[in-house]
Structures are given as structure tokens and as C-alpha cells.
């Protein structure tokens, strides 16, 4: 039997859910024994590979890079999981949405607020443009399962990955789906 190919991705989020994944502590040894982590912020692989079995996606879709990457992840993964509140609901990343136009927000942050070097970052091809509205992952690609939480607690992540590697869905009821 071939080993399952697991990936984790970090879009518009704070990486707290990945920190929480690391909080599974010694279980990571079991995970390493059971699956290949083929792509992740904690793995030195530059390109998202083909034929991924399960991909956990942290973060909301906030900019053009996020959007393009989310589509690539969907194309190359059998199961895509919204990992944490930002991916599931937009959460803190989406708190800019009620303020409307991202240009106004960029000006407030990079021009009005700083004491010096006030300028809106502009580097086409390097700094991705913000989308007009931050979107939860399932509103831009099909998502197969949801693991909420800010961050998703370590035990909940372990429970979800164990289920997915065993060919089951993570729990859709009870405390495992609590937001916040």
C-alpha cells in the first residue's frame, strides 16, 4: 500500500493553525510514520506537487496569490480541508470586508499611520494585489471538510487528520465544530 500524501497550505491567516498542528507534539512522530508530508510551510518544497491525497488549507482567500494557489491546490488534491476559522469563515482576515475598498485600508495603514517612509507597497509580480473582499475558501473552490477553530485546537487537528488518513470525514457534530 502506498503511503498517503498529505499537504498543508498557508493562505491569508496568521499561521496559528500551523502552530497548533505542531502542538500535536509527539503525535507528529506517528503522523510522520503514517503519511508523507509532501508540501507545507514547515517542509522545504517550493512547488505544490501533484497527486496529493489530503490537503489542509489554513487562511482565507485575501489576495490574488491566495486565489490562484487555492485553485492549484484544488486541482492537485483529492481532499481539500478548510483548516481553521479563517479558511472556514474568513474570520479575522475578513474583518476588513465591512470597510470596503482595500485601497482605503492600504492608505490608512501604510500612508496615514506611519511616522516615516509612508507609501503603499507596489511591486507587481512580488507583492500580490488584495482582492476587493476576503472570501472563505469554500466560496472560491470546492471544499470537502471543515475543521473550525481559532486556532483549531491540536486535539481537533489530530482527530481530523486521523479520520482523513483512515478514509473517513472529520466530525461534523459536537464540540469539534466550535468556532472561535
Amino acid at each position, binding site marked *: 500500500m502506498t503511503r498517503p500524501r498529505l499537504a498543508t497550505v498557508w493562505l491569508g491567516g496568521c499561521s496559528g493553525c500551523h502552530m497548533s498542528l505542531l502542538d500535536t507534539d509527539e503525535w507528529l512522530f506517528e503522523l510522520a510514520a503514517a503519511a508523507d508530508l509532501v508540501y507545507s510551510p514547515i517542509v522545504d518544497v517550493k512547488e505544490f506537487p501533484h497527486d496529493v491525497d489530503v490537503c489542509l488549507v489554513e487562511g482565507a482567500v485575501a489576495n490574488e496569490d491566495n486565489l490562484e494557489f487555492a485553485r492549484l491546490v484544488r486541482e492537485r488534491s483529492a481532499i481539500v480541508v478548510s483548516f481553521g476559522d479563517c479558511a*472556514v469563515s474568513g474570520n*479575522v482576515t475578513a474583518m476588513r470586508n*465591512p470597510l470596503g475598498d482595500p485601497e482605503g485600508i492600504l492608505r490608512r495603514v501604510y500612508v496615514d499611520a506611519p511616522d516615516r517612509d509612508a507609501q503603499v507597497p507596489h511591486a507587481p509580480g512580488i507583492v500580490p494585489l488584495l482582492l476587493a473582499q476576503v472570501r472563505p475558501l469554500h466560496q472560491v473552490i470546492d471544499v470537502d471538510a471543515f475543521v473550525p477553530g*481559532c486556532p483549531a485546537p491540536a486535539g481537533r487537528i489530530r482527530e481530523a487528520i486521523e479520520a482523513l488518513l483512515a478514509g473517513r470525514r472529520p466530525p461534523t457534530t459536537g464540540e469539534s465544530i466550535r468556532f472561535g
Partner: protein
Amino acid sequence: MAERVPTVPITIDGVEMEATAGETVLQCARRHGVDIPSLCFLEGLSPVGGCRLCVVEVAEDLRLRPACATTVTSDMEVTTQSSRLRSYRRSILELLFAEGNHVCAVCVSNGACELQDVAVRCGMDHVRYELQAPRRRVDASHPRYVFDPNRCILCTRCVRVCDEIEGAHVWDVAHRGHGAELVTDLHRPWGESTSCTWCGKCVASCPTGALSHQGSSVGEMRHTPDMIAWLVAARRREWTEREARR
């Protein structure tokens, strides 16, 4: 001696039970340990049947009834759990989450919120609807309390408790439909209200983080909605008269 309260037989989820004449389906169910989810209902206040979470099926009637605003009748057959009810309740919750800006992670009520709890109970693992992201201003002008309309679900508990129990009627709902919002006095900042008595019953009653104490940070707010029922019982002298009868 206390008067004998007349009862009527009813069936809830296939279990026969005695309802007290005049009580609602929700009250009867809860008295018998059948927990129907609800949000706008608060014991001690008049029911409005607004949130529709407590809808139940009654015998062959196709129309769903809000359990909080439906009085028991003899031989009524009530179903509180079915795939149709579960699907409606989940949709209602998703609409509530999509309508406001409920960012649980940074809410004063995170971990002690009726909306968050009921979402867990009703299996809401994500929201299928487009998030509306409305722009709503927080009113922190009151010296003691804060109103954050981003987290308001318009259950009107605050409106009712202020009107029915405190008698001040500071709160009301302005506008209609999508534009409906809570206002204090005649849409003046809460801190400038001349009718508010600072009693805090609105804050105690709030099921979400919409009303909180000044200075509360993330996850620090604890509401005390049960105190409204105690207050109502005390005003009716239920405790003192029961004591006197002994």
C-alpha cells in the same frame, strides 16, 4: 393551599406527558427535559417567535410552529427533531452568521455565547451563504456598557426586558428588513440617553456579544439571562408567598 393547576395530555417526540394548561410547547418540553434550541426566547419575557429556531412539527399540520409562542392543546402531538427541522435550524443559523459580523475569535462572548453554542448543537460547521459584511458602528458611548451591532441578531430580548421589566423602553428596532437595527432613545448615542436607568438588564439578557460591560476583552463577557426569570418570580412574590404558606 395552592390551587390545583389543570393539566392537558400531550405527546412530544412520542413520549406522553402532562402539560400545564396555558403553558407553551417550549416550556412543557423543557420542563420534561426535552431541549429545543432557541435564541430569542427568554423565560420571564413575552415570546415573539422571531428567530424561528424553536420551530416544531405538530401532528399532520404542514406548517411549522414556533414552540415558544405555541400554547399546548389537549392531545397535541409534537415532533422536535426531524431532518426537515434540523435543516431549517441550520439554515437559520447560517443566515444569522452571514447577516452580521460574528467573528467568534475576537468576541467578548467567545466561549460563553448562546449563538456559538447553538451553532455547535445544530451542526453548523460552515456557512454556505455569502457573508454580507455590513458596516456597523459600535456604540461605546455609555459609561458602563457597550453595544456592538456587528454581533446583534435582533432577538429583541433587550428591547423586551427594558420595556416589560425595567419599564424604561430605551431600546427599539428601527427600519425594516435588511436595514433593521437596534436603537437607543430616538436613535441617539446610548451614552446620551435620558431614559436609560443603567440597570443592565439588557446586557444581562443578550445571547451574544452585542451587549457587554465596558472593559470586557475577548472571551471575558459572561451574561446572566437567567436572572430575568428570577426577577419576574420575585416580583410576583412567588418565593415570599411560598415561604409564607409553609
